[in-house]
């Protein structure tokens, strides 16, 4: 009895830096596992270990029942990898990039060509296929990258921050393509992301990691319940009314709002969406007009604040300047 992807006590060190400090993960076939964390949390290291690109210093990782170290070649037959940065050749056309991979995966020439055309069509790149990726937009590059990882019809797909740096529309397109893939081909996906909403949209299960450790896991709903549902942002037209807004939110939500004076706005976590009409009515009664009134998923920072009691950024600065991969988020 095995999980599709399974790791036990995975450890990876680079010099004095511990990128993975003992990670346990499990995912079932045909599901999307979201690995959520800030820059430098160890997400990419995790993907590289599962893609057989690096050997862990301790612990075990199995993909499709195969050990990523002892049976690396078997694992490589099952996986498709989409890196954080588009991993395609600039000096070849989109079509040639896909053809190359088909040939390396031992497809006969005609079949490799047919597969390349099929994937270009599927990712809306038929016209762009004859051009070099350096003429592509960010979204087109990601799509080509995604197509490239699918040439060998992998059972496992690793997506390392597939939408980082994309505009909202391209982001939505990539999300839709990932959902279609899971639905149509039953691939098992490991997705890393810095965005809670991305994990929320795509992942069945979410594992939150920081400093190479799992700090929370569960379904999106479980996680949201744990961090207090959604957050309500209110920005009054008249900044001098902000204290009144804060007072009002505190009373209704029963929590201490987070105040950003320079933006003139107050945010409070709400566990129950029923409070919304109440807030609207009370604001109206108090004669406070608002510029902004939004209900949204908590940001990754708020997730961290709730789970760990510290903000991810501050923790990065406080705990180590040692991690070379950690950048300002």
């Amino acid at each position: 009895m095995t999980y599709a992807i399974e790791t036990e006590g995975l450890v990876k060190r680079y010099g004095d830096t511990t990128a993975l400090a003992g990670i346990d993960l499990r995912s079932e076939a045909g599901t999307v596992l979201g690995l959520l964390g800030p820059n430098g949390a160890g997400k990419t290291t995790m993907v590289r270990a599962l893609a057989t690109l690096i050997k862990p210093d301790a612990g075990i990782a199995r993909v499709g029942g195969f050990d990523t170290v002892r049976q690396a070649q078997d694992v490589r037959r099952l996986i498709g990898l989409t890196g954080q940065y588009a991993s395609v050749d600039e000096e070849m056309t989109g079509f040639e990039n896909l053809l190359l991979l088909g040939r390396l995966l031992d497809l006969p020439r005609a079949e490799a060509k047919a597969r390349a055309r099929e994937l270009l069509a599927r990712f809306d790149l038929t016209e762009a296929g004859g051009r070099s990726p350096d003429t592509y937009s960010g979204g087109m590059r990601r799509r080509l990258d995604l197509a490239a990882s699918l040439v060998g019809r992998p059972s496992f797909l690793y997506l390392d921050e597939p939408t980082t740096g994309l505009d909202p529309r391209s982001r939505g397109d990539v999300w839709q393509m990932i959902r279609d893939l899971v639905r149509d081909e039953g691939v098992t996906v490991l997705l890393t992301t810095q965005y809670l909403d991305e994990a929320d949209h795509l992942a069945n299960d979410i594992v939150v990691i920081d400093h190479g450790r799992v700090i929370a896991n569960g379904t999106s709903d479980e996680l949201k319940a744990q961090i207090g549902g959604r957050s309500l942002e209110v920005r009054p037209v008249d900044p001098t009314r902000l204290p009144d807004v804060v007072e009002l939110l505190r009373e209704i939500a029963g929590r201490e709002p987070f105040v950003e004076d320079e933006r003139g706005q107050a945010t409070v976590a709400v566990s129950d969406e029923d409070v919304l009409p109440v807030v609207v009515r009370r604001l109206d009664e108090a004669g406070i007009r608002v510029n902004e009134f939004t209900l949204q998923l908590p940001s990754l920072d708020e997730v961290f604040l709730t789970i760990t009691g510290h903000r991810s950024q501050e923790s990065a600065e406080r705990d180590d300047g040692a991690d070379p991969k950690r950048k300002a988020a």
Partner: protein
Amino acid sequence: MTTTTVRPADPSATPPPAHKPAAHRNDPSAVVRHTLTLTWRSLVKLKKQSEQLIDLTLQPILFIVMFVYLFGGAIEGSTHDYLQFVLPGIMVQTVVFASVGTGVGLCTDMSTGVFDRFRSLPISRLAPLAGTVLGDVLRFLVAITSVFVFGTIIGFRFHTNVLAVAAAVGLVLIFAFAFCWVVALLGVSMKQPRTVQGVSFLMMFPLTFGSNLFAKTSTMPGWLQAWVKVNPVTAVTNASRGLLTGGPVAHHAMVALLWALGLMLVFIPLTVRQYNRRA
């Protein structure tokens, strides 16, 4: 960690990959096939790298002009005689210099996601490296053609036959293939392409100028003669001279081929090991 209450996720339930697992990592025919596919990649990329083609064509011409007309008279007393002497040498020097590009290119490639993807494929780790090197060596044909064409225009004459000329080109390419692995090791070991370029060029000067490529060994001081005589570039140059303009070949060619074999035996495994480590 207990796994007693797991829900089964049978990996055999997932659709089998389209590519049949025939290509095992150590299957030599698969290694050759994948290497040739990656050689194709290298040649396709050349189409887009026109500045490289210009480099490969013009650099040997500049060297020929410089040596023949600037130093030829001083060294040999006649630019025409010197052209006959130096042209086979410039062919060798051109490919040895061009090998720097292999190291720089590999170093650049290593930092891109493309090589990560190659590493995640069920292919030999040798194939991406060998494909790159082989592709580069085929590019050297452009440079050698440039040497021959320009040399002939300004008066170089082949004194042998077509087979001998082909043999000279073959020998130079075999040596270039072997020598590229030395630079390739630098390419996969160093972080910065610029460092690779700097260190490689430091290596090129004693190898090319410290040979009998530009001047006869007998004109040099004893300590330099000692180096020139063990320098593999001297052996390749001697054999090429024999094959293009006449003279003894067999011994020099044998020494050159043994050097090539030795370089490959040492540097191919070292490069692959370093490539595996730097993940």
